[in-house]
């Protein structure tokens, strides 16, 4: 919250759109504003009333550079919008930078998402340091209901609950990389960096940078699912394959390869397989190991077909690691197999567990 927990004293708050951006149809702007206010009214007793003239609590406008409040915008990108906390006069007013490109999809800046964030300020919410929260100050694109538990807790401590608030499904909180109970969904290399997937987030770890960077999956790859089961990189083809359920996507750098998603059964897996737990490309053999429940399969990347003699038992062929894994990586003859909070360093040729570490030691914890 802002200092002194600034808030509106009434539960009916008025708003007025004073001008429109030419980037979108007028109806689309109205819809974005309506939906953005709805986000907050879903979880509080607040109601919003549209005014067509006169002074409203929340005056909404688009402007560029100096636009009348001595708090100028800065041209394209950088600063997108700002809003004033509840109060008289300029309090609650919300301004969008007209030098940005406003959209209703994942391109450039989605007006609904920015408006929902700014209306959070107009209602008394300050910035959150949770990268999964709508009130996080950096723009990221996401689909679905945009409020996280952190946002909901914040707004409800100002205005109370909406009796129907159980209907909304908040976004998960961003996972804490050094949580000793952290488990990993998937791990892959991507052009020399390591990408670690967990819930709707991923960490990007550069070999020369100590601190991993955390982002929402959807904000980087809006086309792939918000949660990943398994992933691997084939550096020879310069692609990363992402698995979720019975579908897979191919990424070339940060772009999704055309023709995807495809069904995992195209790889030669039987239809009974509905999910891949982990995948890893073994550079020395040109084979990709696909782990499903207690078994694993070997896919020959060059032939584009499954090797015969599979599936084989994980427990039998990888003694010492148990019978299931969550994620896998391969570096210089060693397999790194993740299960629950544990990471096994496994000598692939000697078939021996060399070290057991915490899963998040990968994230320098």
């Amino acid at each position: 919250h802002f200092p002194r927990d600034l808030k509106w004293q009434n539960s009916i708050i008025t708003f007025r759109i004073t001008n429109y951006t030419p980037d979108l149809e007028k109806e689309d702007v109205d819809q974005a504003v309506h939906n953005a206010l709805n986000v907050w009214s879903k979880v509080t007793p607040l109601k919003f009333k549209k005014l067509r003239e006169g002074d409203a609590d929340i005056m909404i406008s688009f402007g560029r550079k100096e636009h009348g409040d001595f708090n100028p915008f800065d041209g394209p990108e950088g600063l997108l919008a700002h809003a004033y906390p509840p109060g008289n006069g300029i309090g609650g007013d919300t301004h969008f930078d007209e030098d940005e490109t406003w959209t209703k999809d994942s391109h450039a800046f989605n007006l609904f998402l920015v408006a929902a964030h700014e209306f959070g300020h107009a209602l008394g919410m300050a910035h959150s340091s949770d990268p999964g929260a709508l009130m996080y100050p950096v723009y990221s694109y996401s689909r679905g209901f945009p409020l996280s538990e952190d946002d909901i807790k914040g707004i409800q401590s100002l205005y109370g609950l909406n009796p129907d608030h159980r209907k909304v499904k908040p976004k998960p909180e961003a996972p804490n990389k050094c949580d000793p109970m952290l488990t990993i969904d998937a791990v892959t290399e991507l052009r020399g960096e390591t990408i670690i997937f967990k819930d709707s987030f991923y960490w990007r770890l550069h070999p020369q940078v100590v601190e991993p960077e955390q982002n929402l999956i959807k904000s980087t790859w809006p086309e792939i699912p918000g949660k990943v089961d398994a992933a691997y990189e084939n550096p020879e083809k310069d692609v990363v394959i992402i698995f979720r359920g019975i579908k897979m996507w191919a990424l070339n750098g940060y772009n999704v390869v055309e023709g995807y998603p495809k069904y995992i059964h195209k790889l030669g897996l039987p239809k009974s397989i509905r999910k891949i737990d982990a995948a890893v490309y073994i550079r020395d053999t040109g084979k990709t190991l696909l782990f499903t429940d207690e078994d694993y399969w070997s896919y020959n990347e060059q032939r584009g077909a499954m090797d015969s003699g599979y599936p084989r038992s994980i427990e039998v062929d990888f003694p010492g690691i148990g019978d299931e894994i969550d994620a896998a990586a391969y570096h210089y003859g060693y397999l790194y197999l993740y299960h629950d909070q544990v990471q096994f360093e496994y000598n692939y040729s000697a078939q021996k567990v060399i070290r057991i570490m915490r899963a998040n030691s990968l994230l320098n914890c």
Partner: protein
Amino acid sequence: KPLPTEETDKRLLAEQYLKRYYGMQAGLQGKTKTSDVMHEKIREMQSFFRLEVTGQLDDNTLELMKKARCGVPDAAEYN
């Protein structure tokens, strides 16, 4: 006037960012090296964004400063 170097550009970007979002006052920065006030504000920003707190303008910190964001200050007393 000499052309700005890459280092000067980074410092200018950081100064502008810290003034806007972390309430760093103008005129307190050293001409040639980063002042204590600026180090302190960088630390504040790094701590807010859960970056490694070094007080230095490392690549992660600069990359975050370049991202599109909301204009409301993060941690400053609201003015």
